[in-house]
């Protein structure tokens, strides 16, 4: 049995001066697993992703990513783990507006030697970016040279997916990436993202408040199921 990509134990987190937002006793995400995490706005989904990504620090408990306890690592080491092993997709405006399509996709390779060596082994960053974009349905050379702000929302999200996938990350975090897409585009996007993640055995943690998406994933949970703080707030 392989070690989980993400393992959370006794996690507690509160924003300064606020009641506890997250109180998670246990949570695991296996390699290659596609997990759908739902919950209403303000329930702490994005905060949990920030904690897993090592951008936020816990008050208590542990978060292991690929066997490394993020709570015990220095800020720069957490940054390094994120740069090397995580791919992140946001809801909207999640591309650097002044870079071209290809430049956006290869941006993570600038910050990670591991990803650099991965793409070099695959034939180079530019080639790997074009391959990923082609897999996601973006092949037109003219379009790839364009500034990302010239693309449609659906095209932008596919570019963001390619950026998250480049360099074979072990964990892909997607925070409400389809909320601005229509139903057809949304389903196609999730299908493409899942397929690409599966090819590299990357775990996919997909967060949304739209419960209807649950059927597209291996497993679905509601944050309130694992968050004692939400249960307590609900009881009150």
């Amino acid at each position: 049995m392989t070690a989980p990509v993400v393992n959370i134990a006794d996690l507690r987190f509160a924003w300064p001066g606020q009641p506890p937002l997250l109180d998670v006793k246990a949570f695991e995400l296996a390699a290659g697993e596609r997990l759908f995490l739902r919950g209403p706005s303000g329930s702490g989904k994005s905060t949990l992703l920030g904690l897993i990504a090592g951008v936020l620090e816990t008050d208590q408990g542990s978060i292991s990513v690929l066997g490394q306890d993020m709570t015990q690592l220095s800020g720069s080491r957490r940054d390094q783990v994120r740069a090397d092993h995580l791919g992140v997709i946001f809801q909207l405006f999640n591309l650097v507006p002044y870079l071209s399509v290809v430049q956006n996709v290869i941006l993570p390779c600038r910050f990670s030697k591991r990803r650099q060596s991965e793409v070099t082994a695959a034939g180079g960053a530019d080639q790997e970016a074009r391959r990923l974009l082609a897999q996601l349905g973006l092949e037109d050379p003219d379009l790839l040279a364009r500034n990302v702000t010239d693309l449609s929302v659906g095209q932008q999200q596919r570019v963001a997916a390619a950026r998250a996938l480049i360099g074979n990350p072990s964990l892909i975090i997607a925070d409400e990436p389809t909320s601005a897409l229509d139903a057809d585009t949304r389903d196609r996007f999730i299908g493409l993202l899942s397929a690409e993640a599966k090819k590299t055995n990357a775990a996919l943690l997909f967060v949304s408040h739209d419960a209807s998406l649950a059927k597209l994933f291996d497993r679905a949970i509601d944050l309130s199921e694992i968050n004692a703080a939400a249960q307590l707030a609900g009881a009150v």
Partner: protein
Amino acid sequence: MGVSIFGLAWRSLLNRKISALLTVTAIALSVALFLGVEKARNAAKSGFDNTISGTELIVGAPSGQINLVLYSVFRLGNATAEISWQAYEALDAREDVAWTIPISLGDNHRGYRVMGTNLNYFEHYKYGQRQDLAFADGREFDDLFDAVIGAEVAKSLGYELGTPIIITHGLGASGFNDHDDRPFRVVGILRPTGTPVDQTIHVSLEAITAIHVGWETGTRNPLVDTISEETIRGFDLTPRTVTAVFVGLKNRATVLRTRRAINTNKTEPLLAIIPGQALAELWQVMSTAERVLLAISAFVIAVGLVSILTSILTSLNERRREMSILRATGARPGHIFALLIAESTFLGLIGAILGALLIQLILLIAAPILTAQYGIALMGTGPGLVDLYTIGAVTLAALILGIWPAVTALRRSLADGLTVKV
């Protein structure tokens, strides 16, 4: 591998073209102003120092060395007293003196000073790097009523050889006090020197005496018209006084001893000054204003640099998503910090380089106009170390100022986490 941090900074600036352009313009204008003042100061100092050279001493009636250098070299103001011809002859006869140039000032022609002197002036007077006076046209004065005019006089009044000149008594406007009974004739035009020589009308000392026959009381004697030019030529026209004397020594090493000897002259009180020392003292007086001007232009640069801060700080809020994206894709705090510092440095560097180029362009256009119209030669205004130092200092200051927005962006990016709800 892809785009470097500097590449990101550059593209980020291009993405905010108008704001970046305005900031760079502010920096460029402030640097151009600063360098303009600095170059004008250097040109003025250079021109100032080059006004007279090769003259070891200037001798006049006792007043002060600044006053003496002002009226004898720069033709500004008047001597409070003159020195006698006998004193001049004694000075000229000194064994340690190689040559003397007596000058007599007091009259004008249409605002330009008229200076009586002798032929030694054309032989020994030097300016700049020991450059001799040279004729653009004509020759030295020979006849009593010959005049040699400076380049600017010729250009601005449109005079050429043979043009008659009426000298006006004193420094007042022409009219009632004109020496119109004894007109001069232009026989020589000097080449431009970039010194007060260009604005001077040179005549012989005897001519100064001649035109003042009948003016002994300071005003025109009505009987003067009855004295013919021929009669005047028969008079002893040796001057009774001169305004000042330029002195060249046989041995420059004796300058202090000669100056002391002249200054302690028993028969007539005299003041001998060393031109270099007097010019340095005069520049010292002027340098206060020049330093104030330089300080003002330095403050203008500071304002320009603040515009970098304003530009970047005001953009930070709308760029929080950009910072979050960079953090999510693996950028570490150092990358965010370096990005903002690089942007600030780029703005400072580009602005400073454009400012230095701008002032060179302005000088390129203005220099021929200044020389042609006003006889002002802008020396030492080409690109130099001061430009490099200014570009370096402004860039460094921009880099240091960039720390503020960089720290602010860093703190925000750490607090915002992966997503920004803005």
